[in-house]
């Protein structure tokens, strides 16, 4: 006779095994490893909540301490590989296979483990793609998650850094998986309920806040004149002519410069209220001056940012907040917003090739993608019109009849032609390709595909790839803003000049911008302290960013 509830039975078995260590749902911190050994089975798909920011650090240590004779060959399915313990699992032989999206701080070590064969790589995903697979073929059998607090029934308050938790728990709890939460504390009454208690099987009180990476804090003190020049070019050459109101920014210094130039340079250009009003964005501290100057109408966030909570609570007209007043972030929702409801993504990258493909993978770093590929891609399922989308579509395809013409999302790559240690941003071939052949991957980890990129901004100017009509034009539009890199110096000067005359390439002087005006005095804040002052002392930056 066919059994239709084997997964339910297995779940119940796991819960019974775990219950030996629990009082109700509550498990003592000291029993965390024993609980995991009781609940997890060899070969399980496990999501160890490692988000872009929030980390289930206690559960990560507990999992890394299990007996590998009992628990082994785990298949880790988590968006962020951030903590050392995430990789210890592979070194120790507890885990074998990995599907992930982002690995910022561990990018070098993950590369070593991949080369050494310690990690069997499924794929490097975009966030939405990984979340989607939680519901199709990568559903976790066990999810180990992090929240701020729980009540006696196991209801969870995730705090401002809700991030991936709802997407993970929904997939796990409703497909007969086990959800184990670490919480900073157990309380009688939660500020609000982010995850209902009947979706949660076990709760461990860690006694201290989970680790959060301050990933979106950019010190205005480190912004260079060249970055300011690229910001001026972007504002005057892209934000203004397209009238971009709905957008997402990457986390680099160029876009931080744009944020700090909106209330100064943008104001001078008369753009207030006409651009940059609706955002899918983490609460970037560098956006505070623009918010305080009345530029920003609303922001939906993937996660929060260290030190921004009090400021966010005091600006509920701008941010999404719960009845308790604190931020409710949600990575899956905000990624969807960025993909479908934003007209522009602008961000930095490490390498761009002659087709416009870009990647943050270098020979010894596998950083993963984070949100850029979802933000930085044209949503083919989009159907609602907007001015920038229609205008970009028209530039790409002037001949089709307007009612049948697809619009285009503006996907802008911005950066200096040379990056850190004089490494060129423009290359003949991406390091991602070398990595793919070395690891025998079917797909090279390309962050943004060339056919999605619409503009490239460097200190040399703006290349509008929408206006290119052939591969040769496209290549020379890229060479034409590649500065003194090998790729830039190999340009055909005549062809580049023709592209400039057609407006495909626009130099600073074509936009009325003198590079000598790219001065740090344009920055609405030139230090973290300035940001604190703009915020009315509501922003409390982490100590490592202070000089007072």
């Amino acid at each position, binding site marked *: 006779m066919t059994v239709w509830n084997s997964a339910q039975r297995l779940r119940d078995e796991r819960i019974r095994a775990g219950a030996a260590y629990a009082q109700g749902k509550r498990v003592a911190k000291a029993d965390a490893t024993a609980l995991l050994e009781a609940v997890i089975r060899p070969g399980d798909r496990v999501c160890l909540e490692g988000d872009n920011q929030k980390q289930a650090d206690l559960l990560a240590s507990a999992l890394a301490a299990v007996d590998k004779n009992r628990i082994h060959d785990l298949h880790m399915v988590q968006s962020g590989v951030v903590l050392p313990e995430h990789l210890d699992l592979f070194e120790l032989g507890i885990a074998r296979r990995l599907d992930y999206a982002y690995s910022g701080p561990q990018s070098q070590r993950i590369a070593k483990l991949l080369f050494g064969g310690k990690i069997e790589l499924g794929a490097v995903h975009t966030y939405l793609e990984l979340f989607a697979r939680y519901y199709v073929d990568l559903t976790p059998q066990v999810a180990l998650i992090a929240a701020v607090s729980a009540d006696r029934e196991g209801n969870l308050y995730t705090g401002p850094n809700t991030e991936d938790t709802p997407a993970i728990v929904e997939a796990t709890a409703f497909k007969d998986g086990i959800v184990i939460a670490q919480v900073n504390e157990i309380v009688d009454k939660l500020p609000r309920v982010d995850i209902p208690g009947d979706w949660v099987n076990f709760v461990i009180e860690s006694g201290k806040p989970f680790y959060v990476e301050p990933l979106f804090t950019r010190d205005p003190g480190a912004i260079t004149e060249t970055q300011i020049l690229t910001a001026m070019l972007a504002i005057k050459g892209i934000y203004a002519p397209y009238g971009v109101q709905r957008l997402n920014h990457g986390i680099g210094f160029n876009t931080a410069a744009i944020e700090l130039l909106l209330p100064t340079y943008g104001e001078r250009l008369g753009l207030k209220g006409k651009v940059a009003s609706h955002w899918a964005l983490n609460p970037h501290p560098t956006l505070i001056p623009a918010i305080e100057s009345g530029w920003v109408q609303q922001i939906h966030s993937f996660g929060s940012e260290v030190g921004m909570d009090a400021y966010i609570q005091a600006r509920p007209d701008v941010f999404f907040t719960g009845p308790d007043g604190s931020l409710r972030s949600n990575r899956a929702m905000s990624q969807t917003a960025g993909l479908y409801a934003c007209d522009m993504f602008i961000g930095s990258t490490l390498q761009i090739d002659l087709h416009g493909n870009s990647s943050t993978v270098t020979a010894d770093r596998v950083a993963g993608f984070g949100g850029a590929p979802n933000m930085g891609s044209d949503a083919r399922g989009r159907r609602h019109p907007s001015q920038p989308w229609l205008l970009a579509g028209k530039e790409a395809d002037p001949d089709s009849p307007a009612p049948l013409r697809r619009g285009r999302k503006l996907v802008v790559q911005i950066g200096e032609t040379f990056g850190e240690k004089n490494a060129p941003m423009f290359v003949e071939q991406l390091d991602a390709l070398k990595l793919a052949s070395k690891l025998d991957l079917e797909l090279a980890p390309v962050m943004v595909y060339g056919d999605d990129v619409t503009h490239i901004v460097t200190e040399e100017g703006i290349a509008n790839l929408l206006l290119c009509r052939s591969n040769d034009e496209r290549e020379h539009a890229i060479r034409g803003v590649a500065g003194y890199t090998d790729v830039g110096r190999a340009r055909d000067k005549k062809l580049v000049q023709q592209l400039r005359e057609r407006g495909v390439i626009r130099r600073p002087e074509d936009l009325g911008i*003198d590079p000598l005006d790219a001065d740090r005095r344009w920055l609405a804040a030139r230090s973290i302290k300035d940001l604190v002052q703009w915020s009315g002392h509501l922003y409390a930056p982490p100590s490592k*960013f202070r000089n007072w």
Partner: protein
Amino acid sequence: MSTVTLDNAKVERQPLVSTDSWYEASARQRVEGLLDANSFVEFIGPEMREISPHLALFDLPEQFDDGMVVGLGRIDGAPVLVAAQEGRFMGGAFGEVHGAKLKGLLRAARDMASMPVLILFDTGGVRLQEANAGELAIAEIMRALMEARFAGVPVVGLVGGRSGCYGGGGLIAGSCSALAVSEQGRISVSGPEVIETNRGVEEFDSKDRALVWRTMGGKHRRLIGGAEVFADDTIESFRNAARYLIELAPAPTLDTLEAEQARLAQRIHDFGDCADALDIWRSLGASEPETIPALSYEAFVALADRLQEPRHDAR
């Protein structure tokens, strides 16, 4: 539907928010802004190419002025001698030429005995690559400085650059007639990393920048009487401080040295048991010491004037 049109006529060159930050400025920009317009005459300028004789041996970059700008200028028409360290070149550290330029300026001040000296500190201490020459320079500068002061020359130190005022720079600052410091400025002898290396992270966590600033930063130095004036982080504010302190600076006598000794003994007596600057501020009478780092310039100046007399005859 229309695209946004730019009103180019409105685009002016001058940025909207523009205060001249002392912290951000280069040594030359500080000198320019501190003095009356066009009054600065540089001695041994970069075109003389008096570069360090040591750095080439270490295959290191040189700077034409060796990170020290010295010369003569005017404030409100009155002549002053000025020395400014470039804190971004080798952390503003003292080398042979760098030090000799300041020593020479102080000796000239001593011999003329008619013009005050302003020292714009921005230094991590002595250059490792020319340590002996640098240490000698520190000793010679301190001697020249004291001789100038005994000749009746006010020597005023201004501290607010990114490299702070550390090592031998801290010793020289301690020899000055008077000091002005901004919030960003730090004055000490051993730097945070040095303390952590020698005494352990439990003693001093150099990465805890809030701790670093409340132990060595401008607000703390003002509160315990290490600096007479707390300046805002603008060139204008430092100019006002310089003007005020030149007038105020007392000539050293045996009495002032003894008074200084007594003041230091009293400081140890009052604060010797304090484990943290917050305890010191509390025992000075600050009711909410933990709020002090966040206080605005104006609020802090008012508080500091209440808790600590703004001047001492002794330093």
